[in-house]
């Protein structure tokens, strides 16, 4: 299966206001960055060349994996989306 297809099948109502906000300076100094591989929604990416973390909240499944694996407390905000926004499971 093409991995990209996995993500295309889940529905979202995207809030413009992100529910998770990172302090990227902390990520740059992290020795682990377990969020990048552990996030089931591929929301985190680390650029080795730019030494820069990128986080996109759009496809977030609100599972909390990043919240638990981050050991640097890099979140300036980690909360669930406003009511009615975010992932919307239909059948699962």
């Amino acid at each position, binding site marked *: *299966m093409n991995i990209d297809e996995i993500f295309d099948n889940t529905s979202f109502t995207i809030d413009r206001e992100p529910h998770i906000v990172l302090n990227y300076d902390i990520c740059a100094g992290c020795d682990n960055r377990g969020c990048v591989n552990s996030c*089931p929604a591929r929301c985190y990416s680390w650029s080795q060349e730019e030494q820069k973390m990128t986080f996109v909240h759009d496809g977030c*499944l609100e599972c909390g994996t990043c919240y638990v694996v981050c050991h640097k407390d890099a979140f300036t905000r980690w*909360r669930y989306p406003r009511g*009615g926004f975010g992932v919307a499971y239909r059948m699962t």
Partner: protein
Amino acid sequence: MSKTYQAIVIGAGPAGSSAALTMARAGLDVALVERGSFPGEKNMFGGVLHRLPSLEEIFPDFWQRAPLERHIVKKGVTFMTADSSFNTTIEAGNFDRPPFNGYTIFRPRFDRWLAQEAVKAGATLITRATVDELVHKNGKLAGVTVQGRDGELLAPVVIAADGVLSFIARKAGLRQPTFNPAQMAVGVKALLDMPREMIDDRFGLVREQGFANEFVGCTDGVRGGGFLYTNYDSLSIGLVFHLASLRTSGKTPYDLLNAFMEQPQVAKMICGGKLQEYSAHLIPEGGYDMIPELVGDGILVAGDAAAFCNATGLNLEGINLASHSGVLAGKAVVEAHRNRDFSKQGLSHYKKLLEESYVIKDLKLYRKAPHMLHNDRIYNEYPELMCSFMEYIYRIDGAPKENLSRLFLKSAREKVGLGNLMADGLAPGEHYEYRRNF
């Protein structure tokens, strides 16, 4: 504008709706607050709903009324490697007769239905409402605020059934500010559409019968396992990973899921299925040792928020414990109203009810299970050992046969190491090492 209730339940999952239902039936004016646009929208689980004694007490016809899928008559465990698998299944006549032992369900349907039952009993369901803060007045818990909404929801008592991360329990100072990744797992799941007849034929099922299978050795060495459940006309297939192990593995959940689905024997089981939905959720797998403070002044914690999840290695129970704890929390609040005492002391009846129930009894009994599951060999070497040993047994190629126990020891030496085999037989996993690390 503020509104006043006699109790507020945060989260309309199995714990919250069971609590709201219990309180509403006892005549309390209850608000059931849910962040999804309907209950169940945010919820996902592996897939088998077991018996719910507390809800069966409330509705004797529970199993006729609830929106269920297939009842599980066949349970299997598969030990697998990249290209081999060794499988055991139990199909019991008793599993095919009511009361059934478990059902597959869809959370967006089941949770929505259960919340509606609470509404029918008189509870007020407020959806699209993410609770933000606890409100205190005169030094007492007095209600909650909702993100992006003015005003407050007021009540002398709050039940935090807000799920595995329970920010409410944290704000009330009832849980630790951070989680230990060794006590958490993440589950990822793909829902595959498949015609009903194809499922029946492929898995040997008739009528409403269902099949549930667990897999070990399918996670490329990451601590965890796989599952496959049959719904009426879809399959739920997924993996669960311990977060501490996943984090350090450098592997991703979706690549591992993809590899699992492409393993030759699994690929045959799901062939013809069409991907409908991908989902992920955390599981509090730390067991008894992970349970937070369950009661504070004006607040009780139930369900995943209280880490009521029993991962014994063979079964994974959560909804039943959540629902049971919700009912007991509801009962304790009803009593607190009777006594007009919402202090920690006044609500402590909840803890007593829990301790007398299977919720705490089972979690205590399996207290060591999470530690035993922190043994990497379970997830790689043992499945390899089983598959290669069975392959040796069945291979008939003209080579002289070997004594079976000698053959087993030879395989064990190759795959696991005899020292490890002894240690795993005698000691509970890497219990001590685990303790040292955290």
